[in-house]
């Protein structure tokens, strides 16, 4: 991995103790067969391992679905540990990527002729095909100009290099570039694959997790396996730090994930006139007559004081309203409009308090009309 390359000289005396490694790195897939889900991609890539013929590639999909891991694993399987460093170049958004710099780096890298050496120091044989791989991670943050210039570079060095562009938003890659690549879509992980991977990690780390905890992990991470793993590690750190160690609970996961507690959201929803079912503590439902501007404003201020994130609060409120069993569709539609406006405003960096209040008042109005 690039991480170890740059550090190789200094890092040896300071080798990271695996116990202290973040699990996302520790359990990064080592081979493409370790990659969960993404069956189609893996199937196609497995063929390239035997045919050793690789097209230019474009990986796209949401965060934490295995894009970076897959290309790193594939490269390692193609070249083995010894040749990895002189055959694979990884550039990402945190590197300087003015096009002149990129060109320079790629030129230097592509110039050194690949040496074939099939049997690696670890005794295994690697295909070691006669080309180099250039990984442009987070390619969607490259400017259009830089992407344009990349076209030429790709052509110039086509004989000895293969490019792999990795990004979240395929639409931000210019068409001429995208059309030169085989595209691979990475989908959010389905719950079966996530469950499997999380349980593997849990058993490797010797921690016990209940099915309940796993399903909370999956719910709160929305198909982003990196997030699920991070949450799991943090929760296990916290639970093992108490004396005596306590088991991990769904509640821990929710707190770590920044989920707003259900009773807080329910309480807010009730103040807006939404009938909330299925929670135990129905002490003091808001009196219908008292419902009004001031009640809503107070609730919003209380939410802000607790520091809950606005987008999270709104998304949970959204779920309550949109999946509500009895609200008429017309009212739901009106609420949906308010949520959409607020989401846009928050993305533009608007004030959170004003927009939670705005949504609250719009919902209140929609439901009382």
């Amino acid at each position: 991995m690039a991480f170890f390359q740059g550090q190789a000289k200094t890092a040896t005396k300071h080798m990271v103790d695996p116990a202290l490694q973040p699990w996302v790195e520790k359990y990064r897939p080592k081979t493409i067969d370790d990659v969960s889900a993404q069956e189609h991609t893996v199937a196609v890539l497995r063929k390239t391992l035997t045919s050793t013929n690789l097209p230019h590639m474009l990986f796209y999909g949401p965060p934490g679905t295995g894009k970076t891991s897959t290309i790193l694993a594939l490269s390692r399987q193609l070249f083995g540990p010894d040749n990895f460093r002189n055959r694979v170049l990884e550039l990402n958004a945190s590197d300087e990527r003015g096009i002149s710099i990129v060109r320079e780096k790629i030129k230097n890298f592509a110039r050194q002729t690949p040496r074939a050496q099939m049997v690696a120091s670890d005794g295994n044989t690697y295909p070691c095909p006669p080309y180099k791989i250039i990984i442009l991670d987070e390619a969607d943050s490259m400017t259009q100009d830089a992407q344009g210039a990349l076209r030429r570079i790709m052509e110039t060095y086509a004989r000895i290099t293969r490019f792999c562009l990795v990004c979240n938003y395929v639409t931000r890659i210019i068409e001429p570039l995208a059309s030169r690549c085989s595209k691979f879509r990475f989908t959010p992980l389905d719950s079966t694959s996530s469950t499997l991977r999380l349980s593997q990690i849990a058993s490797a780390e010797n921690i016990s997790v209940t099915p309940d905890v796993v399903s909370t992990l999956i719910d709160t991470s929305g198909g982003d396996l990196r997030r699920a793993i991070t949450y799991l590690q943090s929760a296990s750190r916290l639970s093992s730090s108490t004396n005596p160690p306590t088991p991990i609970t769904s509640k821990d996961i929710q707190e770590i994930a920044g989920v707003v507690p259900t009773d807080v959201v329910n309480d807010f929803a009730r103040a807006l006139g939404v009938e909330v079912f299925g929670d135990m503590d129905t002490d003091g439902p808001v009196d219908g007559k008292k419902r009004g501007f001031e009640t809503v404003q107070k609730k919003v201020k209380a939410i802000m004081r607790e520091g809950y994130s606005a987008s999270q609060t709104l998304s949970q409120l959204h779920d309550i309203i949109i999946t509500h069993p009895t609200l008429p569709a017309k009212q739901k539609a009106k609420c949906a409009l308010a949520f959409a406006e607020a989401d846009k405003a928050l993305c533009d960096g608007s004030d959170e308090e004003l927009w939670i209040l705005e949504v609250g008042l719009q919902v209140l109005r929609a439901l009382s009309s």
Partner: protein
Amino acid sequence: MSLWVDKFRPRTLDELHYHEGLSARLKSLAASGDFPHMLFYGPSGAGKKTRISCTLKQLFGNGVEKLKIDQRVFISPSKRKLEINIVQSNFHIEITPSEAGNYDRVVIQELLKEIAQTQQVDLNAKQRFKVVIINEADSLSRDAQAALRRTMEKYMSNMRIILCANSTSRLIAPIKSRCLLMRVAAPSPEEMQTVLEHVAKKLRFDLPPEASQQIVADSGGNMRKALLVFEALKMQSPDLSGSLKIAKPDWETYCHKVADLIVQEQTPARVMEVRSKFYELLSHCIPPTVILKTVAERVVERVDENLKADIMHWAAFYECRMRIGNKKIYHLEAWVVKVMSLYKVTKHFVYDFDMSEFE
């Protein structure tokens, strides 16, 4: 002599008053050796910074308190020179990206690279990594956030990042997925009172409960504000008895005046008057969002129930535009005009209605 807020700021996790659960968690994380990247978030004055510095002390010991301030020069891609002040110790470094304006990406990138590539030289250091604290992380540009992504993964062995923000909405998902989130809620009124009493005890005087309640009620959960007010009150009336008058900050009084002006009269002349007051506030560096919110909240206190929601709706609407737009005053003014016309229309409506009843 330092202010009470600084003088009585807890220095270790054990001295922290409220959110004991959180402090305990931080302590165990600091002890475990696999300290993660963290994101502290919560309302201002809740004690995020204090908690962060206590955590640092737990991690590294007294050395982190030996601070030096460096002025560093960065060169932007357009060859502009940026001079930025950086607070650091041997173990950590602290940056406030908004100082770099549009070039925050350059600054972050250079600093992080530099730190990531230097090993901890102090052999007695308790941790192998250095900590980078990024204040006001929610004001980082998208570009700067993108630059953080892979850096956070790659340089994990000799660097940890602690982000400090009021809200998480403005941070991109890949950043949040790489951090352990730490929510720091505002302290409850009771918790705040305990802190005030603690200070009083240290200084050996009595704090009447009425006084502390009043201070807490005024502070809106902002511990810093409460302590500042407390100190000011004590200077004013040393025995803190009788009816205390907590002076509002000038800008707040001024905003309330603006609100009153809007409610009293709705004419073009009044708009002009309000406008000059806005300029006054802006020129004193009161953030436009704060101005709009303070004025709006005051206005809704003084109008009929049926108007309140609309007034806040337009406040939200124009605040958003103000963020994207360039000239803050336009949007403040637009909101005022909107509110005045709403107010006028309803007043007429009521007036007409009354007349018809008379006939």
